[in-house]
């Protein structure tokens, strides 16, 4: 058992670039669902909008990376109008259906062959983020790897993390300020009862559109970091599973709590990566049971090998999530009393 490798995976990924991406996406979802009560089952669609806004500007329009960031935000605002205008006057579930459909439509559209000159189709867009990495202050001659106790990162990832966590901090600050303001109070009122808010003179439709836009743009930033960290925009990065992982992140932390998305994302990635490393090490280990190693048992009974063990982590994680829902449905930061108010 190589415990050091397991711990390194756990700690590094807990604060790594993936955690940045999911923290941002979940901050957006928290604004949608946690504070405004908007059912968004297609947050990955916003990530795709941000990512392709950036990638297509560089690849198709041949413009600068920095303009691409702006375009990514604009794509997210356009997506908000497309999703919001027809559905936000209707019952909450209509938005839910529209978001899930839109996110899949986006993925299928950008990967279609006809779009090759614009989106790169299934090959995607690669090496478009050089201007970002040119600024990397962690670049150094020789080894590009940094290590600090159990934390180990490449220089490029460190740079993404520095900028990424800064953006996360900014988004948290904005969310915190907005949610303690009268604007945030109106959002919460709309979440609780839209008709009551309207009777008191609040334009629920406009507020919901604003909240959808804000959370969507933050989701778009998540998508941009996702493609910057790999220097590659791939359509299949943006599959519906991602949306549900973002929901898991939010639920672990607890909805409508400011720190939930960040702590949820850290725990999620630490757990997923640690679990995978642990299972891998377990199969490789020389621990024996009834005369055979665990790896032999795993292959014989479960057909599990080092190659496919990484899928098991999602099963275990799913189980854990179910236990969490059973014993701590409010998540880490949520309050059970507050949650119980829904049932009265």
């Amino acid at each position, binding site marked *: 058992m190589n415990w050091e490798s397991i711990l390194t995976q756990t700690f590094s990924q807990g604060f790594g670039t993936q955690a940045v991406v999911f923290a941002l996406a979940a901050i957006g979802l928290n604004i949608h669902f946690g504070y405004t009560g908007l059912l968004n089952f297609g947050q990955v669609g916003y990530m795709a909008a941000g990512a392709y806004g950036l990638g297509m500007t560089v690849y198709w329009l041949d413009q600068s990376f920095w303009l691409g960031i702006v375009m990514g935000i604009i794509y997210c605002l356009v997506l908000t109008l497309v999703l919001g205008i027809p559905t936000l006057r209707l019952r909450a579930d209509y938005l839910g259906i529209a978001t899930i459909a839109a996110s899949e439509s986006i993925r299928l559209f950008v990967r279609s062959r006809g779009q090759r000159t614009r989106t790169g189709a299934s090959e995607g867009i690669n090496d478009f983020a050089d201007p970002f990495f040119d600024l990397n202050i962690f670049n150094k001659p020789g080894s590009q790897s940094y290590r600090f106790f159990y934390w180990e990162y490449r220089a490029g990832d460190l740079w993404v993390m520095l900028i990424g966590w800064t953006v996360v901090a900014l988004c948290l600050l904005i969310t915190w300020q907005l949610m303690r303001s009268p*604007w945030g109070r109106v959002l919460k009122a709309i979440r609780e009862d839209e008709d*009551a808010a309207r*009777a008191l003179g609040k334009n629920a439709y406009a507020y919901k559109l604003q909240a959808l836009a804000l959370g969507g743009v933050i989701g778009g930033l998540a998508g941009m970091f996702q493609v910057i960290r790999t220097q590659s925009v791939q359509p299949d990065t943006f599959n519906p599973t991602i949306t549900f992982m973002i929901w898991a992140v939010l639920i672990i932390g607890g909805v409508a709590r400011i720190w939930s998305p960040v702590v949820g994302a850290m725990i999620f990635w630490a757990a997923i990566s640690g679990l995978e490393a642990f299972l891998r090490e377990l199969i490789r280990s020389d621990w024996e049971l009834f005369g055979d190693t665990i790896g032999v048992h795993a292959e014989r009974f479960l057909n599990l090998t080092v190659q496919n063990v990484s899928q098991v982590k999602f099963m275990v994680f799913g189980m854990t999530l179910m236990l969490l829902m059973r014993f701590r449905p409010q998540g880490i930061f949520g309050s059970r009393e507050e949650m119980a108010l829904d049932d009265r």
Partner: protein
Amino acid sequence: MTDNSNDADFVPGITAGGGGAGAATDIEHHNPIEGVFDDVAWEVGVAKPDPILKATKVSRKFGGLTAVDVDYLEVQRGSITALIGPNGAGKTTFFNLLTGFDEPTTGSVSLNGETIDKVPSHKLASKGMVRTFQLTKALSKLTVVENMKLGAKDQPGESMFKALFSPLWKGREDAVEQQAREVLDRFNMTHMAEEFAGTLSGGQRKLVEMARAIMTDPELVMLDEPMAGVNPALTQSLLGLVKQLRSEGRTVIFVEHDMDVVRDISDWVVVMAEGKIIAEGPPESIGENQAVVDAYLGSHHDEDLEFDEDGNTTTETGEATFSVNAKTDSEVSE
């Protein structure tokens, strides 16, 4: 009107320390529209001296069912008008039509002489109209005081961009907070200010909803069964509060099933049955009205409708005229 409108920024009649049921009883006897209805005929669709709200040919169909079919109704400014009628008469639906929460199939509504048919419901609050709901809508995960503050008007912090900068809204917020606590005091709810509204009992939620509506400083308050599920003692202080609204010059329309309550506080009563207004008049006129009695006893469809003692017929077209011993026909005619 009242002696305590000392701060222009405040809801009139609400002053620091002056709240509570005690204060309410001091002024509840004062009725600024005393005598206004003296010359108004007791008939459906009659014109009022100074109407704040007018509904013309308002109807609403749900498929084959005509839930509301009101020919003409005026509501007197500054009065307490009760809307009564059996279950399913269409009172709530009519409320929804008047407040923009539902669109009439036909007809038109005007507030202060201005047509509000195309005005979305959220804009009516700034035009001075506010409503509560039959099924109480307390905002569960907001505290009681946050519920109150939501009602306040002119809060710049409710704009997304101004919200980012506290100094732009902090001042108004402090004023609103003070105002909220004063209204709570008036409703004897101060001790619950910091509780989540979702933890309150049904009756307490009714109070929160009504108090929150008053925070909008409305000209016209529309209450859908405000006393339902409220205990008798509390009902008494609520009645006092409603009268206080009138003495502040506000107009109140409320739906109520309890005839004692209706008799106690209303200046004018409108009776609905099967979507139509079948009678209008001061409270004392209603109990003796044959159309009303029929509607409540369910003999409305009976072909052999009886004539009341003055010989007026009660027809299904909603044109039931009625008069009772207190007045003669000549006094009643327009």
